[in-house]
């Protein structure tokens, strides 16, 4: 493997992981956020607390339980055996699962808040104008919650890029498959290779900063468009 490949592989892998995870998170997180925003079920708070757990759990704890869950003692093993495998650990797919759980609250929370901010009235109006609940979701809720989707996507993406503890527990450090940026930087630091460590870490820092800056600008623009 050339040095260039060794250098770029973690970067591309990390971007791929963050991108796919964010996509999955939006897909799964949106109905969840919708339910949390609109449901009157008594156990709603319990579900919300579960979703928020990754906010307070040390990533290593999360990774630890993931290791068991992804292996032959857990559901991951059952899924893997469908494809002739034994475990979902040490696979890119396993990392996606871990990332989705790890970044879930960062995506669900902003979307839920955006849905809640809409209030009840626009849905009543939509109903009296002939929109079924499904129709109202797409024609009223989604457009009005757009800033929430945006924030959630950006937070989920950047959070996954920085993911370390979870990857350390279930990744296995396989180049091109599970060796992401954070782990690579850690390895360089452990082996006292300061130059590439600085380069990659600095790059990550700059990238995250730019992304967050852009996000704030975009959010302001989106908000102003609504106010007319």
């Amino acid at each position: 493997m050339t040095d260039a490949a060794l250098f770029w592989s973690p970067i591309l892998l990390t971007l791929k992981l963050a991108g796919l995870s964010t996509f999955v998170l939006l897909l799964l997180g949106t109905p969840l956020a919708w339910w949390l925003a609109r449901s009157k079920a008594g156990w709603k708070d319990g579900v919300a607390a579960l979703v928020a757990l990754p906010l307070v759990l040390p990533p290593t704890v999360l990774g630890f339980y993931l290791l068991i869950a992804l292996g032959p003692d857990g559901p991951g093993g059952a899924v893997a055996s469908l494809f002739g495998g034994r475990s979902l650990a040490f696979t890119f797919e396993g990392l996606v699962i871990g990332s989705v759980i790890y970044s879930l609250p960062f995506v669900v929370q902003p979307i839920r808040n955006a849905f809640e901010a809409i209030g009840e009235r626009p849905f009543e109006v939509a109903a009296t104008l002939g929109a079924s609940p499904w129709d109202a979701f797409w024609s009223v809720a989604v457009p009005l919650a757009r800033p929430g989707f945006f924030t959630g996507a950006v937070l989920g993406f950047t959070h996954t890029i920085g993911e370390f503890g979870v990857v350390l527990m279930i990744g296995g450090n396989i180049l091109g498959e599970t060796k992401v940026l954070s782990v690579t930087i850690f390895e360089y630091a452990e082996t006292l290779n300061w130059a590439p460590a600085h380069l990659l870490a600095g790059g990550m820092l700059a990238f995250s900063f730019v992304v967050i800056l852009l996000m704030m600008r975009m959010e302001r623009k989106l908000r102003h468009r609504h106010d007319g």
Partner: protein
Amino acid sequence: MKGMWQRQKILLHLLLASLLGVSDAVSGDQARVAVAANFKLTAITLGTLFTEETGHQIAFSYGSTGQLYAQITHGAPFDAFLAADQARAERVISAGYGVAGSRFTYACGRLALYSRDRGLTLSSNSILEDGIRRIAVANPRTAPYGAAALQVLERLGATDQLAPKLVQGTNVAQAFQFAFTGNADLAMVAKAQVIDPTVAGSHWTVPQTLHDPIAQDAVLLLRGADNAPALAFLRFLKEPTAQAAIRRAGYGTAGGQTGD
């Protein structure tokens, strides 16, 4: 049922062991010693023996060798350093934080091949079997046990065949974890991890001939140059009582005697 509980207990302990940077609370006049994480259990035993014999207290801090090195070279208040290799112990001295000439080998790491399935007879042929999908090792770049594991594969002529099956943990504790949870079929771990008969599974001690010695060196740090407990502890490590304890724990000793 009981076996499962044992598993959980061991797993939990290993989790704590691999959570880097755990240290014991401490106060008063004593020595602070930084210890490579894989030596933690043995260090505790040695610490107790040392205190019984001399009355001095040792406060241990654990971490990966690389992390401890970084801490020491940035002013962490340790008096002595027990590394998991020789290279970083020497670097501490050349970086100006260690006392020249104080470096010595306190233990020799031994490799073991481990599987969580009980009652297996493992040998060098076990890793070559077709049914093996994943073999866990410690990261060869950051952990000397990992580098030694790769040497074993090389000397068995199996590097090309097995390279795609390798998964790396950050250290041997994690490599063990991978095998213990069933995610990896086999793991190359430190013998010290599996020598306890209560550890569930089967293991095979890798012959010393298959890899370079994993010499683990200790160094007196400048900060501890006048620290009586620290000096006494490093002396203690070379004594027969300590050496016997180290061998019992599954390491070899610099005296050439290998534990089995």
